């Protein structure tokens, strides 16, 4: 990517300047990334090596990874995270697709207002409604259940999902859908056979953003789950009690918890910007 522009050499006539720039940029990137790198490395150390003087040289071991699974049943929390993140994303897409379709292809005078109102619900701070949600969940038996968390995350991400789908649908050429309608396709057929296949990349990146946000969410998961339905965010929080040597295990568990999302995040940077700023920055 960096080599695509040819006039680079001529513009930066001074190689020293170019060298300094490269050095500076890479140092900054390294410093910012360092805690993650260090965490990954510590996960492969023994607990004794983890608290010894910092060193990049050590004999790597998988014992922390094994210990994390053996002692705390890591897989259980990972399964909760997967179920909650994907469950809420699927549900949000299911509810949002018809809505975004209507906004993009059957706009009325109210459409803009509806979109903005949906956004404004996202501005409600979770802590402002913690008490009622907690009490409702307690009374209907949704506390510490995956269903409860899926519901909360679906509603939490619904505005962003509708918004992103709307922008992707709007970019689609209208003629194709018109043609389908001329041929007598019903709304469902139009959406299922024409719209969805054609906007699949957009739907996929919307889904990924929703998965990332749900996976990393740590307010509701800490307050609404305890043991049965706790996802990885809550599981990692259990390492906050200071008991003995646990850095290597914390690192191993953390590495497994963030790796999939880090990779997804790298892949969807561009769409993230679009979704997180509600299209205000493109």
């Amino acid at each position, binding site marked *: 990517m960096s080599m695509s522009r040819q006039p680079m050499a001529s513009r930066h006539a001074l190689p020293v300047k170019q060298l300094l720039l*490269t050095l500076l940029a890479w140092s900054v990137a390294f410093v910012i990334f360092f805690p993650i790198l260090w965490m990954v490395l510590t996960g492969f150390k023994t607990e004794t090596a983890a608290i010894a003087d910092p060193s990049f040289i050590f004999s790597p071991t998988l014992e922390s990874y094994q210990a994390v699974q053996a002692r705390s049943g890591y897989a259980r929390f990972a399964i909760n995270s997967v179920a909650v993140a994907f469950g809420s994303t699927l549900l949000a897409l299911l509810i949002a697709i018809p809505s975004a379709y209507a906004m993009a292809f059957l706009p009325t005078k109210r459409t803009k207002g509806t979109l903005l109102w949906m956004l404004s619900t996202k501005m409600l701070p979770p802590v402002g409604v913690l008490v009622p949600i907690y009490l409702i969940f307690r009374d209907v038996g949704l506390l510490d259940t995956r269903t409860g968390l899926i519901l909360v995350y679906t509603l939490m991400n619904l505005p962003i999902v509708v918004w992103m789908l709307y922008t992707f649908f709007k970019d689609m050429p209208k003629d194709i859908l018109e043609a389908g309608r001329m041929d007598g396709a019903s709304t469902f057929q139009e959406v299922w056979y024409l719209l969805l296949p054609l906007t699949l990349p957009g739907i996929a990146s919307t889904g990924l953003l929703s998965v990332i946000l749900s996976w*990393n969410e740590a*307010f509701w998961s800490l307050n609404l789950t305890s043991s049965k339905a706790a996802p990885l965010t809550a599981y990692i929080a259990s390492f906050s009690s200071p008991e003995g040597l646990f850095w290597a295990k914390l690192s191993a568990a953390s590495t497994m918890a*963030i790796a999939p999302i880090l990779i997804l995040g790298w892949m969807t940077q561009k769409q993230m910007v679009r979704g997180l700023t509600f299209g205000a920055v493109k």
Partner: protein
Amino acid sequence: MTRTRASGRQVGGLRALSLQAPAVTLLLLWMLIPLGMTLWFSLQRYNLLMPGMTGFAGFENYEYLLTDPALWVAMGNTLLLVGWVLAITVVGGTLLAVLFQQEFPGRGIARVLAISPFFVMPTVSALVWKNMMMHPGSGVLAWLFQSLGLPAIDWFSNFPLTSIVIIVSWQWLPFALLILLTALQSLDEDQVEAARMDGAGPLAIFFFITLPHLKRAISVVIMIEMIFLLTIFAEIFVTTSGGPGLATTNLAYLIYIRALLDFDVGVASAGGVVAIILANIVAIFLVRMVARNLEE
């Protein structure tokens, strides 16, 4: 196109309404029920530990909350936290965006590394910083300070709020960088080139071309960060639990203490109302800006 639409407008409107109904209804319920309950509870005497004591409290909870010194400490901490993190991430993010916009070998990879912390879940970043970076005995920072002949710092005992600011900034600096870097991509290169031809130095280009171009993106970053930073919770929960004393208790954490540790639903709800009002002041501006963007 308008003619074919006009005949079916009524039908179309109805169809649009029914297609949007699930999303709108759910969000309406999600907003109105808890909001209504928070407001209602905030006017009630309601403590889960004292089931006998119930009834209308009027503004008692607000009175109690507003005369509680803890609230003002928490408000102060909230503002300090938001203010410092905003200053660090916006200034830092702008500078880093300009840096990573330059061309250098491996730029793509360096960028990916620099935005990575944003994808790390808050509980992980807080615990990694607390233990492996900032630990006074075996942390990387302690080792670094000692190698430079400086005394190691016990971050969370001596500078608790600063420690939280550092952790939260580390998470949100990449966010600012990501957004501003994207915004820089639409900067007119010819304009920069022309200014350079006219003899403008890098500083002049930054202040008179780059910064004005980034103005809108920067305000978006500020508003979005504010909404999230006002209610920072997990980072405090796993590192300091609001302490020592109230040193790192922000508004969100105070409400959590009142609600789920003291079980005082009434006072916690009054705190919730305060948080909602604060967030809405910011939200109004953000929604307006997005609305303006929608018209273009």
